[in-house]
């Protein structure tokens, strides 16, 4: 072991790194990806350090003159409770980012596992699971989510997270399954079987690394959908409950007052749009970089 480890770093490692950096370079060269990345980074920063970016406490500083239009003191105006909309918008990214990332991770992990199982094991497992997946895919995402949230009778953020994650599972499973089907035909899988490897080793150690690029692409694409779905649910009154500063909750709360208090709705809406567009720009870039 030690003799090998002490040999000078061989070409291989540097070449593998070169391939990876080539992909990064490709991503970094696209102005759209860079722009999207900056926006996402900004919102993540806001979510992590609301105290640093917000001029006022988004919940407890409610002593301002209520319902004032944008001014120098309050660039996004104040809401009916006398809170600073600017601070609430900046702080509002926290909940949506938490939920969407957690939901997408759940969906990706479950979906990838299910895709590996159905694509590799085939047979009855595949037949049953695939019919089930088809059935779920035929349902409209938001309607299903609302239905399930209502049925569960609890719309706390972790319930919403889990539900979105579960709804994404079949979509991701189907994409991964297609990749696994192609990989499973290759001779290296046959070779693994002929040396007596167990199925889980073949699925997770042999095949998974080869479909990883699919998984990464799927993750970024789903993240955009998740943000959108969560915002929609929030707007309909599910998810994060007031007084937490959540963009969708703010819209839900104030959209009936849009005339004349347009600032209370517009700025949270723009925030949602900026995040969704940014994630989609990055997702497109990632897909292009991986599919070359």
């Amino acid at each position: 072991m030690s003799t090998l480890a002490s040999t000078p770093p061989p070409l291989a490692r540097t070449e593998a790194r070169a391939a990876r950096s080539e992909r990064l370079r490709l991503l970094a060269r696209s102005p759209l990806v860079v722009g999207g990345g900056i926006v996402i980074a900004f919102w993540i920063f806001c979510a992590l350090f609301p105290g640093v970016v917000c001029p006022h406490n988004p919940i407890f500083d409610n002593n301002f003159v209520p319902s004032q239009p944008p001014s120098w003191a309050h660039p996004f105006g104040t809401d009916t409770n006398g809170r600073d909309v600017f601070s609430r918008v900046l702080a509002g990214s926290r909940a949506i980012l938490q939920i969407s990332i957690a939901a997408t991770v759940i969906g990706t992990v479950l979906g990838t596992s299910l895709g590996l199982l159905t694509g590799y094991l085939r047979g009855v497992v595949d037949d049953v699971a695939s019919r089930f997946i088809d059935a779920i895919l035929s349902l409209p995402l938001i309607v299903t989510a609302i239905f399930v949230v209502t049925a569960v009778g609890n719309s706390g953020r972790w319930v919403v997270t889990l539900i979105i994650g579960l709804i994404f599972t079949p979509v991701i499973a189907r994409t991964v399954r297609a990749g696994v089907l192609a990989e499973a035909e290759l001779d290296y899988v046959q070779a693994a079987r002929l040396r007596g490897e167990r199925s889980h080793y073949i699925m997770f150690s042999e095949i998974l690394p080869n479909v990883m690029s699919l998984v990464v692409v799927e993750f970024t694409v789903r993240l955009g959908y998740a943000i959108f779905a969560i915002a929609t649910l929030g707007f309909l009154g599910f998810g994060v409950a007031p007084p937490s500063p959540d963009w969708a909750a703010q819209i839900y709360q104030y959209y009936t007052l849009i005339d004349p208090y347009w600032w209370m709705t517009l700025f949270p809406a723009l925030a949602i749009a900026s995040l969704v567009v940014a994630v989609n720009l990055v997702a497109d870039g990632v897909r292009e970089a991986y599919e070359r």
Partner: protein
Amino acid sequence: MTDVAPRALDVSDLEVVYRVRGIDRPVLRGVTFSIGRGDSYGLVGESGCGKSTAALAIVRYLAGNGRVAGGAISVAGKDVLALGQRGLREYHARTVSMVYQNPGAALNPSLRIGTQVAEAFAVLGATKSEAEERSLAALMRVQIADPSSVLARYPHQLSGGMQQRVVIAMALAKDPTLLILDEPTTGLDATVEAEVLDLVKQLQAELDTAVLFISHNLGVISKMCDRVGVLYAGRLVEEGPVETVLQDPRHPYTVGLLRCIPRGGVRKDHGRLDTIPGFLPPLGVEILGCVYADRCALADERCRTDEPPFETVVTGHASRCWYHERAASLPRVEVADIELPAVDRTGTPLVEIQELTKVFKQRGQDVHALTEVSAAIWPGETLGLVGESGSGKTTLARTLLGIVPPTSGVALLDGSPLPPRYQKRSQEQLRALQIVFQNPDSALNRRHSVRRILLRSLKKLAGIGGSAAEARMQDLVARVRLTERTLTQKPVQLSGGLKQRVAIARAFAGDPRLVVCDEPTSALDVSVQAAILNLLVELQAEKRVAYVFISHDLGVVRYLSDRIAVLYLGRVQELGPADVVFDGPHHPYTEALLSAVPTIDGGGRDRIRLEGDVPSAASPPTGCVFHTRCPRFLGSICVEQEPPLVEVEDGHHMRCHIPIEELRVMQRKERATA
């Protein structure tokens, strides 16, 4: 040359570069050759030498990053490089045609053959009914069976040979001045290849078309071409009439290529194959002297600093070598001869298969892939499996390994039955039977390093880990002649030959007793093939491992095999010692297979042609399954009764109604007249 009309193709000082990462990398370096009207010219060389690039430059289909950096190309006296958009379209439509390796990809899978062939005529301005009429005539010209029904079919309903005939018919629709064939028969069986080559030759003579024939197969070139050019690293290193270049090569590269090929009946116990050491220079490096100097045993200081001129050896035969008069004395690569102990066939066979039958269910039909195949393999011997595609070679190998369970019959290891499926086999049984696949790209996990691949196999097959596995891995790596550097690399970073060595090392990790080699060299260049074959022989001598060796290349099979089984439609037609099967008297099918192989030495092998395709295994012919194509068909007995597989001589089994003595007389007579 008193020719007044311009030559069909003139390529002079052609320089082609590919732009990779902002740098122009030369791919063709000053290539000059020409083809007279109605002549045929072959370009040979290993992959990466620039053969296909030359063809693409001629038809002006270079990839986006490629461009002609210098030189001239003219076809029928017209400057191809000066053509504008319209001129180029005209040129493609009327003057030049190209046929590629894979006919399946050249045809549109969702259009009927008739529509596609008619298109070729419509481009030339034919009306719809005219085009249809001429399509039929075109298919008749390429001697396709039942042309009018072929017109109504889709590409997937045709065999590879028929597809290639259709493509050729389309290529000839415009009566081109120049026809370029890029490895047109590489994916086809030898018997089909022979038919297609005959057809091309005949049509060429009829139509007076000039042909540029690109192939890595020197046998094919020798059969098809008048002149041949040998490309190496984008340089034409030797050129001349086919017979003189192949019989009296004057460039060390040509000499080396010819020596790599197992031919003339050489066998592993006669000695090692010669190889070409080293690698092709990487794309686009600056080469000062001779392009081949790095790999040439004759090279000296001058070769490394001064590029030799393209010197005429005798009229019409030129070589780019300072020492072309000494080329034939190129020293052989020193490989220690090894001793192959004789195979002891007295004990229990290592592996015995008894009446294996495999029937696949396909769309409600029974496809008989194997029918009562029996054979035995003793330790240290190689059983070669030959036959056309669809003969059951691969199914037999897969059944043996337990990948597909047989419908009936059993395989024995050391006399005790093996479970039909690999899942039910013990680790010990799995270890005993391993495989080397045809395509090293798909055989190795591209995300795993060589080190990980080998250590895992050692763990599972040899049951060792830690420092013991490390030590064994070093040993394995040394044995398959890989360097330590490869260990940390991933398969993408390795050449085809190196990948195949890794695959072999993996198969040998657990000291297998029998290794199935499924076309292990058919994706490799001949110089690499020779090295891999040498390696397999060395491992066999050291480890007494047995091989089941599948290949469509009969020279390769003969080199490696002790005994050979000839399969046709899932039945063993002939089984015997390699020399007996090859030298005859043979089964009529074996005879036909052998005579289909184009040989470098020329020679009168062209005696027998098999007509048509292998019948469907879903409804095999009655009686002797080979009777529909048999060149020695006797009569009703062949149609009604399947001959049994009988031992006609010592250890030589055959399935034929014709007595062996009669076959011997017939075949000897034909050999004498040939």
